């Protein structure tokens, strides 16, 4: 049994709790135990708060990491933004003693201390490295045969590749391999590594620009014949799910491409109930996807 402290962030628990429940349920069968990250705040978002004040961004991130350090467990998360912030802050602080002591001076005012004693792993890494995709494939009881999945990686899991160290950011494979392990097909589509449009404060201040990017991605996925799109990131998930509704309402589009989180798709392949995995809690209906699942 391996323990992780599960960093929820903002969007997973406060908008898409289905991601939270699906991640806990689908990983528990592989001896992964997700512990509560008690008292965690906003990560804070790397492209948003990092754009406003890098120093504040770093100190708040260090406080979050310090909570997990008190529990002696590595951190995992289901949002690329949270992953980016915690992984990058951890990386910066582990490699800069001067920065670490400045941060700790401030954290001491709230009784916290960053030590640099743990690792931050995306839930993708928990599946691919700790469990292994082959192992996951062996436990599949409901192979998702015939389902065409458009994989979206998002930006901050892979990039900057120098800090993240997950190999190629232009031609990643891990999520495509996961989809295959679940018995489904990963469809290739135009500009696959492109951003969902939400990051860097663009969604909050320039929604139409964010949506224009989202529409381009969805169009490319639909052109490739995708039955659904799969995300590893709660924020991308929100952008694609709410974004389609916004595009339909504001711009008269007719998008209905189901959005599924990677651990929800895993749960389905493990034979779990779609309702219990939160697949009925998206804004865009999952019905067409569920009808295709054997």
């Amino acid at each position, binding site marked *: 049994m391996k323990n992780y402290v599960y960093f*929820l962030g*903002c*969007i997973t*628990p*406060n*908008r898409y*709790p*289905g991601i*939270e*429940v699906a991640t806990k349920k689908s990983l528990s069968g592989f001896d992964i135990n997700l512990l509560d*990250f*008690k*008292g*965690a*705040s*906003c990560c804070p978002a790397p*492209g*948003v*708060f*990092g*754009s*406003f*004040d*890098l*120093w*504040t961004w*770093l*100190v*708040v991130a260090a*406080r979050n990491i310090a909570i997990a350090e008190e529990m002696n467990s590595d951190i995992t998360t289901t949002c690329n933004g949270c992953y980016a912030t915690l992984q990058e802050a951890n990386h*910066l602080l582990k490699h800069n003693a001067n920065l670490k002591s400045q941060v700790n001076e*401030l*954290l001491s*005012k*709230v009784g*916290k201390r960053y030590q640099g004693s743990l690792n931050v792993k995306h839930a993708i890494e928990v599946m691919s490295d700790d469990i292994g995709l082959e192992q996951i494939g062996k436990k599949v009881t409901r192979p998702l045969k015939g389902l065409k999945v458009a994989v979206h990686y998002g*930006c*901050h899991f892979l*990039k*900057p*590749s120098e800090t993240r160290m997950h190999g190629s*950011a232009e031609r990643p494979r891990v999520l495509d391999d996961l989809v295959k392990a679940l018995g489904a097909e990963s469809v290739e589509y135009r*500009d696959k*590594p*492109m*951003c969902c*449009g*939400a990051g*860097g*404060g663009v969604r*909050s*201040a*320039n929604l139409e*620009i*964010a949506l*224009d*990017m989202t529409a381009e991605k969805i169009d490319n996925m639909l052109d490739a014949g995708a039955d659904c799109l799969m995300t590893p990131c709660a924020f991308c998930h929100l952008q694609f799910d709410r974004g389609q509704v916004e595009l339909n309402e504001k711009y008269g589009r007719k998008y209905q491409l189901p959005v599924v989180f990677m651990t929800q798709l895993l749960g389905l392949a493990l034979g779990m109930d779609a309702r*219990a995995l*939160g697949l009925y*809690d998206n804004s865009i209906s999952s019905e067409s996807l569920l009808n295709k699942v054997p």
Partner: protein
Amino acid sequence: MPSILKRQTLHGGEKGFANEVIDHGSRIFSKDDLATLKACIQCGTCTGSCPSGRRTAWRIRQIFLKTLNGLRDDVLTAEDLWNCTTCYTCQERCPRKVKTTDIVRSLRNLAVREGHMREDHAKVCQLVFNYGHAVPINEDVKATRKRLGLTEIPPTVHQYPEALQEVLKILEATGFRELVERKGRPT
């Protein structure tokens, strides 16, 4: 024989601004990384890779040229500076290994200090000041959580008021609340 053209270099303008951007970012990142700004050869790989630049007037190559030429006000007041989604595509592809996205964040930090934070962004900050989350819980999601078998309130600062106080104390101590609420550098 000397050239008949008046010689101009990328660094021919006011150098101070580029150094200010490098120094600001260096509080967090390594100075060598930020100083890659000066290695820019204006090839345009960044702008050519930019998903935001395909649909807006945001031109990262141009912003870097202006930064190197010391056009401080031009850069820091540019609305388009906020169209970058921080996707890192340009940083990954830059043949000169310029830390483009980190430099953009440093530029934006300076813009915020000059009072150019967008209203919508100030609202997001206000949510963090009130709840410790940029996206706080609402009644609908509480009901969904309960139905899914989760605690109605997640085990975050939402459930622990004393933890929220810690976060707020940090936001005071770093000067962030003042930065946002006074719209810029504390006077």
